[in-house]
């Protein structure tokens, strides 16, 4: 609980956002389903509408076909129970094409009201140039309307034809943005303690925040979309690694740690195949900002409606998203294929804004591999010798099974958060708390 309080106070100064390494948005006690991701209702096809304009060098027909292929890449995985239907041109604009900012404004309004989920083709980049004005931005997506029962009701994706992307690159952008459309956040493959290799590059998911050479969905992308929308075959393919990331006291939870798993590869120096990765962010179900009452009336703002309750400092409500269940603060779970894996904890040190906190919280100690005798004094990345075979305790995952208690105690962190706190003995701050 003390960590929760400290997060609340620190985050007053640093963050309001919630999100996740897997899901884009997680419900809070007051909005959505507490601790559960916002997802589309997959009992029926997700209905989207497509801009009838061209997209850069792509004709309307080609762009629409490429988009359909991108939808299919996500929805036709055997472990995914999800379908999507193109229900026709975008409503409310001439010939179904968003050609002007006025059109974009109108379509945004109808998306916000839940009327439609538009796929907008900014044919020559004029919308991007008027709204964003930055050639490095090549696509964006956001849910428009969310329901109280935890569903995405509508969302929009916007693609630019003004960045001279090849068709293959445009397809990558479509795949990435549709990942957001379905409720996925950005993702990372882990941080190699011996330096980034070509294998690490190969593992970059399509949900990496920048355009890479990745042409299709990776193991991480497939696992997380399957986790969001599991089909009947999910449990015959995937298992789950779960655990906590803890400070050196072995009890207090650490949020915002990148936990990644790579297949074991014995007989090699690395001891793992880093070209495949599955990852999670500790505390991804927890909020980035639980709120606090102490500055509720600090600095009135004008107009009063511009700030929560009329004050810049008011953070009594905290974030709209993320659970307040302290047992989830350091909790991670990785949906993963059956197999044997090395599991590592590292800092989110590349990848834009990812996870529950914005800005991210750096790892309070060195990264490390999980081992069967976790302690605050075991081996970690700061002392690793990259010239000799790594000593790794592997984790075995069986399909349909949870491999629990892969708890990682970080080394060399402060024994308590600050010098004014005593030992944490509350059940809510204890690693033996209730987990989902």
């Amino acid at each position, binding site marked *: 609980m003390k960590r929760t*309080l*400290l997060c609340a*106070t*620190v985050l*007053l*100064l*640093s*963050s*309001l*956002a*919630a999100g996740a390494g897997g899901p884009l*948005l997680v419900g809070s006690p007051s909005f959505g389903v507490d601790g559960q991701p916002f997802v589309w209702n997959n009992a029926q096809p997700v209905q989207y509408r497509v801009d009838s304009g061209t997209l850069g060098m792509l004709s309307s027909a080609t762009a629409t076909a490429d988009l359909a292929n991108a939808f299919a890449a996500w929805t036709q995985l055997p472990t995914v129970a999800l379908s999507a239907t193109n229900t026709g041109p975008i409503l409310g604009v001439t010939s179904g094409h968003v050609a002007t*900012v006025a059109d*974009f*404004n*109108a379509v*945004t309004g109808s998306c916000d009201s839940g009327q439609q989920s538009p796929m907008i083709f900014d044919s020559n980049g004029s919308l991007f*140039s*008027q*709204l*964003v*004005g*930055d*050639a*490095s*931005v*090549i*696509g*964006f*997506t*956001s*849910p428009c309307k969310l329901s109280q029962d935890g569903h995405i009701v509508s969302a929009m994706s916007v693609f630019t034809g003004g*960045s001279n992307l090849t068709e293959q690159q445009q397809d990558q952008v479509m795949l*990435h*943005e549709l990942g*957001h459309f379905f409720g996925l956040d*950005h993702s990372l493959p882990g941080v190699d303690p011996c330096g980034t290799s070509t294998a690490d590059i190969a593992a970059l998911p399509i949900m990496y*925040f*920048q355009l890479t050479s990745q042409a299709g969905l990776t193991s991480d992308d497939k696992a997380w979309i399957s986790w969001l929308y599991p089909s009947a075959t999910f449990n015959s393919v995937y298992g789950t690694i779960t655990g906590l990331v803890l400070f050196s006291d072995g009890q207090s939870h650490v949020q915002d740690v990148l936990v990644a798993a790579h297949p074991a590869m014995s007989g090699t120096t690395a001891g793992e195949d880093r070209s495949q990765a599955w990852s999670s962010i500790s505390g991804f179900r927890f909020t980035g900002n639980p709120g606090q009452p*102490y500055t509720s009336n*600090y600095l009135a*703002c004008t107009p009063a409606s*511009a700030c929560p309750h009329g004050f810049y*400092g008011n953070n009594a409500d905290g*974030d*709209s998203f993320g659970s307040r269940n302290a047992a989830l603060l350091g909790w991670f779970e990785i949906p993963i294929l059956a197999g044997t894996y090395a599991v590592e904890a590292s*800092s989110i*040190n*590349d990848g*834009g*804004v990812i996870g529950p906190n*914005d*800005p*991210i*919280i*750096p790892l309070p100690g060195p990264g490390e591999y999980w081992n069967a005798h976790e302690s605050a004094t075991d081996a970690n990345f700061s002392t690793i010798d990259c010239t000799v075979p790594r000593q790794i305790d592997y984790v075995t995952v069986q399909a349909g099974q949870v491999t629990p208690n892969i708890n990682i105690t970080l080394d060399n962190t402060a024994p308590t*958060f*600050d010098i*004014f706190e*005593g030992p944490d003995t509350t059940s809510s701050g204890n690693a033996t708390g209730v987990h989902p």
Partner: protein
Amino acid sequence: MRVTKSRALGRTLSIDFTVAVIVSLAAIFCVSSAAHAQRGAITLPRNLADLSSNAGQIIQGRVVSATVEPDPRYNHLQTLVLTLAVDDVLKGQAPTTFTFREFLWDVRDISDHAGYHLGDEVLLFLNGPTPLGFITPVGLQQGRFRVVKGADGQDYAINANQNSGLFDNVVRSGALNAGKLSAKSRATVQSFQRGPIPLTALKESVHLLVQSPGAVR
């Protein structure tokens, strides 16, 4: 602010002292925290040479206000109205109090003022205004740095990518003549990989890049 005792920490600390502790902790805790960013987008990578050459303005300042409101012309478009007390202008011009409007698309950014907070010290590489007058940091999170105090008392700058890729190909391409940097900054730049960078080294590099038009990646 001196009102009550802090029960949260179970101590008889005044709120003033508690806030001071919190601020100190936050400064330490966040010394290597990234800057905020617009989310839900995919971008192309931008190094420091790109950021410097593409920016119309490069401004260091303190956030005076950050509010989200509908654009007055297009009521369904949400925008961030950010006002900075300008401390330094590295490129372009800016008044001592500078306000600009940025288009927001992400539901999370709309709910949290895109992560800007009163009192944040930032270094922004800003694109020129769009025809609608919107201004966006170059490369979104890549051109948006928080300035934080390190444990050594130095100011550090860091963006949401943990400054990853910031100096990729910048020196090797000749865009930045590291030989013209101070010895301390040169050492920093030449060995830099990722993480917080001393603000002085970053600003020295930016000054050089800005003075060298036609810089290449």
